[in-house]
């Protein structure tokens, strides 16, 4: 068998010589390669696919992307151009059937070149990435405004936020409001499974992990309003686990905090008093619970819009509209057993089913009373 192959090849090789004289257009290749590289890099730069650069960290990270484009386009172009050139120049033409190529087995010099060049480049890229990483994780320099600390708590399928270290008492909220140009450190926890706290405009993200607290910091650099996105698969409601983040001027932020502190004060005072709270206190407790939750129970406002409580969640039905004419019993049932009668167009299993456990009897009563008063009327 082997012998036959040989006898077939022997005459073929004699014809190989004319082919060997065919010129190799090295310079054409280099020129095409350079042009294609230039176009590739230009495209990578010209088209800005990224969302708004909403934090100082975003600037650094986008630069990493651009550097990576510059470093990697040449390699893709190199491979593609050589492949296409081989197809064009070295393809088997009519009459060349049975012809063999030259028996080149290797070339040590070349092999050293294409081992070392990528190696050096990659080490360079890693060093640069390392420097950037330290930059984006760095604490604010001395003299900058005091860093804001926000505790972020994830639960299937909503986030709640708590501001710590303020002058005055801590503030809880279903909506994230941040001051511009002041470093914020998020400390992220979860009550159940993994989630991931991400605002695309800020670029940074990290998982919320049961049992530990994770963190990152950003410095918002643009005013605006965007989405907080959960980026780690957490169950049926994963795609809907969205909330609002708003970056405001420091003055407006302070005002917002003060307003929150004032509103919360009344509620806490009443709850502390316990016992026979009168109707107004009940409503205040209900409103606080709706907008802020109680630490264990996720705030309703994370998912529901209710103008009286100032919330704008869009995951669940808009309670300004749907609650018209509901009885207290119906409302209580919808809170305690959300999966029993699922609102049309919504999926079962999104609204937490554990409010019966995480809210005390009094809290539940207060919430129902509040909703009955503000929305069902």
């Amino acid at each position, binding site marked *: 068998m082997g012998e036959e192959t040989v006898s077939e090849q022997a005459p073929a090789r004699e014809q190989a010589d004319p082919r060997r004289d065919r010129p190799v257009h090295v310079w054409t290749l280099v020129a095409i390669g350079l042009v294609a590289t230039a176009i590739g890099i230009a495209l990578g730069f010209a088209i800005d696919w990224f969302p708004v650069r909403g934090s100082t960290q975003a600037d650094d990270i986008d630069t990493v992307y651009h550097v990576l484009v510059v470093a*990697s386009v040449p390699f893709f172009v190199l491979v593609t151009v050589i492949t296409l050139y081989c197809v064009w120049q070295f393809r088997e033409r009519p009459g060349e059937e049975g012809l063999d190529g030259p028996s080149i087995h290797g070339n040590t010099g070349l092999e050293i070149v294409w081992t070392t060049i990528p190696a050096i480049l990659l080490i360079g890229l890693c060093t640069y990435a390392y420097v950037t990483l330290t930059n984006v994780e760095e604490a604010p320099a001395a003299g900058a405004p005091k860093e804001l600390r926000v505790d972020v708590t994830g639960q299937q399928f909503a986030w709640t936020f708590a501001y710590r270290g303020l002058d005055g008492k801590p503030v809880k909220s279903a909506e994230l409001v941040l001051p511009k140009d002041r470093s914020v450190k998020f400390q992220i926890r979860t009550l159940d499974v993994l989630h991931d706290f*991400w605002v695309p405009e800020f670029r940074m993200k990290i998982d919320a992990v049961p049992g530990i607290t994770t963190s990152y910091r950003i410095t918002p650099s643009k005013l605006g309003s965007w989405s907080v996105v959960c980026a780690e698969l957490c169950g049926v409601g994963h795609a809907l686990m969205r909330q609002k983040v708003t970056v405001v001027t420091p003055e407006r932020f302070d005002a917002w905090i003060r307003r929150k502190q004032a509103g919360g004060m009344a509620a806490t005072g009443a709850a502390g008093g316990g016992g026979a709270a009168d109707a107004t206190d009940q409503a205040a407790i209900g409103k606080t619970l709706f907008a802020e939750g109680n630490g264990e129970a996720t705030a309703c406002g994370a998912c529901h819009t209710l103008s009286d409580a100032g919330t704008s969640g869009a995951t669940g039905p808009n309670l300004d509209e749907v609650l018209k004419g509901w009885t207290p019993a119906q409302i209580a049932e919808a809170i305690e057993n959300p999966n029993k009668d699922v609102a049309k167009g919504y999926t079962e*299993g999104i609204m937490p089913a554990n409010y019966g456990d995480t809210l005390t009897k009094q809290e539940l009563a207060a919430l129902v009373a509040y909703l009955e008063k503000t929305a069902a009327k």
Partner: protein
Amino acid sequence: MISHLRAPGWYRATFWTLVSLGLSWAILWAANGFDADAVTGIGFAQVALLAFPLFFLGGLGAFDYWFYWASGRPTRPEDHSGHGATSWQDYFRINTDHKVIGIQYVVTSFFFMFVGGLMAMLMRAELAAPGRQFVDPGAFNGLFSVHASVLIFLFIIPVFAGLANYVLPLMIGAPDMAFPRLNAVSFWLLPCAGVIMMLSFFAPGGSFASGWTAYAPLSVTAPPGQICFTIGVQFAGASSIATALNFLVTIITMRAPGMSFFRMPLLVWANFSTSLLVVIATPFVAASQLFVLLDRALGFNFFNAAAGGDVLMYQHVFWFYSHPAVYIMMLPGFGIISEILAVKSRKPVFGYRMMAFSLLAIVVLGFAVWAHHMFVSGMQSWIRVPMMVTTAVIAVPTGIKIFSWLATMWRGVLKLDTPMLFALGFLTMFVLGGISGVMLAMIPFDIYVSDTYFIVAHIHYVLFGGSLFTIFAGVYYWFPKMTGRMYNEKLGKLHFWMTFVFFNITFAPMHLLGLQGMPRRVADYSEQFATWNMIISVASFALGLSSLIFLYNMVASWRGGKRAPANPWNALTLEWQVSSPPPIFNFDHIPTVVGGPYEYGVPGAVHGVFESPATASAEARQPAGAVSSTAKE
């Protein structure tokens, strides 16, 4: 009837499967203090899913020989009745012929490719527009989880094992694999794993829906369908460990005389490296799923943070397997490409030794990069930078391979038929996927794009543009050898061009979606991503249709294609020196290897000679010396 139930085969397999169900119930009944009411459906499912594959295999006759051997009874004389196939029915029983097993593997895994692909079609239909089309978010999560698990565990990994099963023993001049019976067991575990994963669609609460990564604690609290993943992976994993062990022993102990390690075809090298990865890494995925199972079924606390468990441990154990697994899904493809490029360019593989060493380098490095999947997981932050460096360094041996392939084509005589087209498609598309991988390795950039469609783009560029292109190339290349028929070249080329074009229209825009901030694993997305998603969905349907061309070509050519000659590609490696399809025992005499496998363009070069052993060993040295002296010049 009784004799049917005693003889190995489908009757006995059915019977024993039923027995295993009864037994599972009885065990639970006994474990619950003989209280029938205490036996839950889920508990029963867990035990039964673990037990039935073993009983099914036993019934089919997979273990008969070993039972005889272990009990010291005379094993039946080796009449080779379990070897070779004369009719289609022979493909449906325990068969010890590596060629039959190879075809069983390839056909079964392609079946799963269509199943997995169909799920992708459903996903794309849902994602064509924002809002809900026709599946709810829970079902959508189930679709991409099963899509990925089926394509990874039941398609890419086994189809490579199948192709290698067919050609590897032929290539090294062995009459069969080292452990033919174990080989049969490996194969039959696969349909069992497939059935288990498919059963999840019938589970209350829907199919398993926590991604192919099945991160704890979501997988611990998920509805019962999750156990179909947990248990299915155990069997798929056992199957691939057994095959890998078989390949390693075969390669080490059964090479033809004269076939030193550096005369082995690179496909053999590739499977050698892959098998090392499998034997070392796969036990980790088995363990990770066992932990989940223990937490679910028996209330253990591995991932219960409140009781001192560690959630991130799951990810470390899982990725310690699943990163090497991505090379398990790529290295055999590298081997296929080396074969095809050398033959179709009529030139020796450039830098053969570096090609072999770079495979080993990837194996070694592959174990030191797992945490690059965990840059945003909240693990100890000091692990990130070392992992970034090792990950980046993997691009170096991979680059060596890419550049050597380019040099192999340089000045060759390129035959641009279907296998070659897929090989060239692989070359360009894999580089794109590899480059996006290197970008992902850079931590600051990964922090932004992790868990977005940029990752989905990377996955498909390496797995489809990489692995699947090499699989198509390999299937077309060895189709004549495996079936004795030629495939239809026109349809093959059409398949390639449709696949190549629509593959890019489908997956390239995903990079952009990722950069724009579209998260992965979502059934619904905001308005701003709508246009690209529509384009992607339409293109993906065309991509799906292109696979039907392939299916038609394979089926029609197998039944009525032109008869294939023994060596249609004029290749030197041993599998082409025997008839198509090869004789039942591969060789009448074991060939003697006298030179390298790719000596194209070397006058008078031979890889193996087929004389009777006595004369061959005497004459072999002559041409071997001649070849190596020409090779040096």
